[in-house]
């Protein structure tokens, strides 16, 4: 069975600074995706970034980037130039893939509550 661990229940960062959220996972699968979702107080789950396990290059989306270490089973999220609107709960999630490209269930970590301070 797959598990996802987020060891930082809460974090705080000053506006315009950089922060890194940690995530580790455990799996015996070789083909999978990893995701970071953001959940602001509105409770909407918003995709931040995704990473295919077979790709060595780390994914980047504007101010968001990941450090994917497959051998270490680590998938951290770096937020650069933090903004007040980044204040939210951040969830790391794992999804195994299968041939045919169908979506499968997400396995979530427990989340990290990030507060961006003005």
């Amino acid at each position, binding site marked *: 069975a797959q598990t996802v661990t987020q060891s930082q229940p809460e974090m705080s960062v000053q506006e315009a600074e950089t922060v890194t959220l940690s995530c580790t996972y455990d799996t015996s699968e070789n083909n999978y995706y990893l995701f970071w979702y953001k959940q602001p107080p509105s*409770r*909407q789950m918003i995709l931040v970034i995704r990473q295919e396990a077979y790709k060595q290059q780390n994914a980047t989306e504007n101010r968001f980037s990941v450090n994917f270490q497959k051998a270490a089973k680590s998938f951290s999220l770096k937020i650069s130039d933090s903004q007040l609107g980044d204040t939210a709960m951040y969830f790391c999630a794992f999804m195994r*893939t299968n041939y045919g490209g169908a979506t499968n269930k997400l396995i979530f970590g427990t989340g990290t509550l990030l507060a961006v301070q003005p």
Partner: protein
Amino acid sequence: DARVTQTPRDKVTEMGQEVTMRCQPILGHNTVFWYRQTMMQGLELLAYFRNRAPLDDSGMPKDRFSAEMPDATLATLKIQPSEPRDSAVYFCASGKQGAETQYFGPGTRLLVL
């Protein structure tokens, strides 16, 4: 702007009552997921469907929960009878063949008194 819709947004009910939550997946998406979010358990999968067929409902208490897809544009999650421990936010998400991303609805916040 295509999005997953869920109704109702909030629901307060009394223990023992039936609760029905509805989800409209994004048009063209063939996979629908139901997740539950609680403080104690976090986000967990209840059930999911592909091409309207149930694939996995192992996370769902079978005695009181049921999930169906009457057609490709509607998924339902029912709780009968509801209990206070069912209080949670219930999310529906959808995805399509050949794409790995799931898109979430706004969730239904359920409070069972």
